[in-house]
């Protein structure tokens, strides 16, 4: 069996050192807690914000006026908006400028244009702009430095693989040391755990390059770990049935579509959308935020491909766009374009809709960032009832960290059931160097095949009770085979096995929720319920798994 290297103790544990995790850890440490952050890779360059970002959703009264409701509406109408408990959106917006000021003081340039904050892009013409334009190329290094300065203990290459709980709530984690080829377990005990492991990529085949599992817009190391681990200890997930599909250049999958300043066109030059005829740094073409399926529609109806055309953009705005792409972390793409002579002033680039991934669907949190399991918090892309991407992760990470550090319980720290911990250790150890075993890639691709066909996302693809029911049965078979046959040669491969099993939990949760929502809404298209039911417009579907395995589905009103 893989050895247990050590047991650590803290007041607050943070799982994941992306934007949300680092901000949560800093807040908890500044609140006086002993904080340990456990990170899968290295916090200086991990997660979907690894190499940068350039827009931060924010309410700033000097720019937006004193009526925050105008900005609440703008956020809820944006591509980030459909599935929010608005009470959380308001809390996020109220605290957003404070976070911006902290980031600026920590060395992330939130005012790259001089003394004032500038709001640009991702907006309808003549409507308020809610995205602060910033230069986030060094954001991970700066946040890491601040976390260390605040007293956070950062443990890199130590991903959390299981959450530990007792009757009172969460009490620790089991983590896997992958810093050397020989893996080891570490247990960490604390009365507060903050989950911040990001979205779930690699759940569906990459739409552009099926079979190339790591060609994803968001970080492919984000594999729904928190959603799966929390599901396994009974936490509530919400909005899991709604697919989210990002869009961007084809076939090189990359986020940051709105950093491009151009107009979407059909091959004959006609514009896709009615919003702008010439894009500027202030107002770009928001067509694909509104007509989310446009690029897929144009392929399916034969009128495509759809191009993003920047050739009419001014030279000054093209230079500005290039700077923005560096801030956004798109230097890999820029290097490629430079090497291949692709110049946005002369070339229109085809755009496509990427495969579904989970962002803004996942753990249900309350106004303080706490999940339905006492002591367990969540922040960032894996939260299912408020979403604001980088800004959401930062601000809600901060809220969760501060709350977790307040009111820590006194007395003897709770300990998990030793038998449960041992069973987890035996389970994960069983994959190591199993003779004649199967590769994690087989299981990950098998999972994607099932999700593609039996939990498909729109447009042009449907779900139904019979397809989803079959998909759940196929997934059970795949999981059984995976648990029996997967083999890992070293710590790196064992981590991929763990990720694949976590993704299976995510896939099952998606299918259970999709079965329960008996209507079509967004990209959740049911062939057996083709209509949108107005009675479900303000209803959120939560799901959780009981200890015996029963899946509990509950409806509730959206919080205003």
């Amino acid at each position, binding site marked *: 069996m893989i050895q247990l290297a050590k047991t650590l103790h803290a007041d607050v544990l943070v799982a994941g050192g992306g934007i949300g995790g680092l901000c949560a850890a800093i807040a908890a440490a500044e609140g006086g807690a002993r904080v340990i952050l456990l990170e899968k890779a290295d916090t200086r360059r991990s997660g979907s914000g690894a190499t940068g970002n350039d827009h931060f959703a924010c309410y700033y009264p000097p720019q937006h006026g004193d009526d925050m409701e105008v900005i609440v509406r703008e956020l809820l109408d944006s591509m980030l908006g459909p599935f929010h408990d608005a009470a959380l959106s308001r809390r996020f917006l109220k605290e957003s400028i404070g976070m911006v000021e902290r980031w600026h003081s920590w060395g992330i340039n939130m005012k790259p244009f001089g003394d004032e904050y500038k709001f640009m892009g991702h907006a309808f013409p003549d409507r308020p702009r809610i995205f602060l334009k910033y230069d986030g190329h060094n954001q991970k290094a700066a946040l890491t430095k601040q976390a260390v300065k605040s007293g956070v203990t950062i443990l890199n290459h130590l991903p959390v693989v299981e959450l530990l709980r007792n009757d009172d709530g969460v009490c620790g984690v089991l983590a896997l040391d992958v810093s050397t080829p020989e893996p080891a377990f570490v247990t960490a005990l604390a009365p507060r755990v903050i989950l911040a492991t990001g979205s779930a990529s690699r759940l569906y085949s990459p739409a552009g390059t099926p079979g190339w599992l790591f060609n994803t817009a968001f970080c492919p190391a984000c594999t729904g770990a928190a959603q799966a681990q929390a599901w396994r200890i009974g936490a509530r997930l919400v909005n899991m049935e709604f697919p989210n599909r990002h869009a961007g250049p084809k076939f090189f999958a990359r986020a940051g579509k709105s950093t491009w300043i151009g107009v979407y066109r059909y091959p004959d*030059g006609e514009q896709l959308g009615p919003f702008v005829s010439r894009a500027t740094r202030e107002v770009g073409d928001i067509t694909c935020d509104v007509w989310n399926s446009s690029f897929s529609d144009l392929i399916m109806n034969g009128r495509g491909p759809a191009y993003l055309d920047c050739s009419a953009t001014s030279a000054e705005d093209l230079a500005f766009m290039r700077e923005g792409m560096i801030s956004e972390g798109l230097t890999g793409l820029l290097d*490629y374009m430079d090497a291949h002579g692709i110049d946005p002033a002369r070339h229109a680039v085809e755009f496509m809709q990427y495969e579904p991934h989970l962002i803004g669907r996942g753990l249900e949190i309350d106004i303080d960032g706490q999940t339905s399991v006492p002591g367990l918090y969540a922040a960032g892309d894996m939260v299912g009832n408020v979403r604001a991407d980088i800004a959401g992760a930062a601000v809600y990470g901060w809220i969760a960290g501060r709350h977790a550090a307040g009111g820590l319980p006194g007395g003897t720290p709770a300990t998990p059931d030793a038998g449960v911990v041992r069973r987890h250790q035996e389970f994960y150890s069983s994959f190591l160097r199993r003779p004649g075993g199967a590769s994690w890639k087989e299981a990950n691709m098998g999972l994607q095949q099932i999700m593609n066909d039996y939990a498909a996302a729109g447009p042009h693809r449907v779900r139904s009770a019979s397809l989803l029911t079959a998909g759940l049965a196929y997934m059970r078979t795949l999981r059984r085979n995976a648990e029996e046959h997967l083999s890992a040669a070293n710590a790196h491969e064992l981590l991929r096995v763990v990720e694949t099993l976590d993704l299976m939990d995510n896939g099952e949760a998606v299918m259970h929720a999709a079965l329960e929502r008996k209507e079509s809404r967004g990209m959740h298209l049911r062939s057996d319920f083709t209509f949108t039911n107005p009675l479900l417009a303000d209803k959120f579907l939560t799901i959780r798994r009981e200890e015996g395995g029963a899946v509990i589905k509950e409806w509730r009103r959206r919080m205003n």
Partner: protein
Amino acid sequence: MPPVIDAGKCSRCGLCAAICPLGVFEQTERKTVPAVRYGEECWHCNACRLDCPSGAITLRIPLNYQLLHTDASQLHR
């Protein structure tokens, strides 16, 4: 596969192996040139290229990631 290390320029510091979000590199012994062990798992985030202190790393983007494009003038005929 995707990251390519120029062994002549590499200072053998191991920073690329430490910071890669996908664990693509493996440096089994300190002060050696890291091996690109899991190239197919590269996300092409460019962290290694950006952070390498000796400019020894480039990314080789796979052929099938071809960035599809056309002459913009074709759209304005």
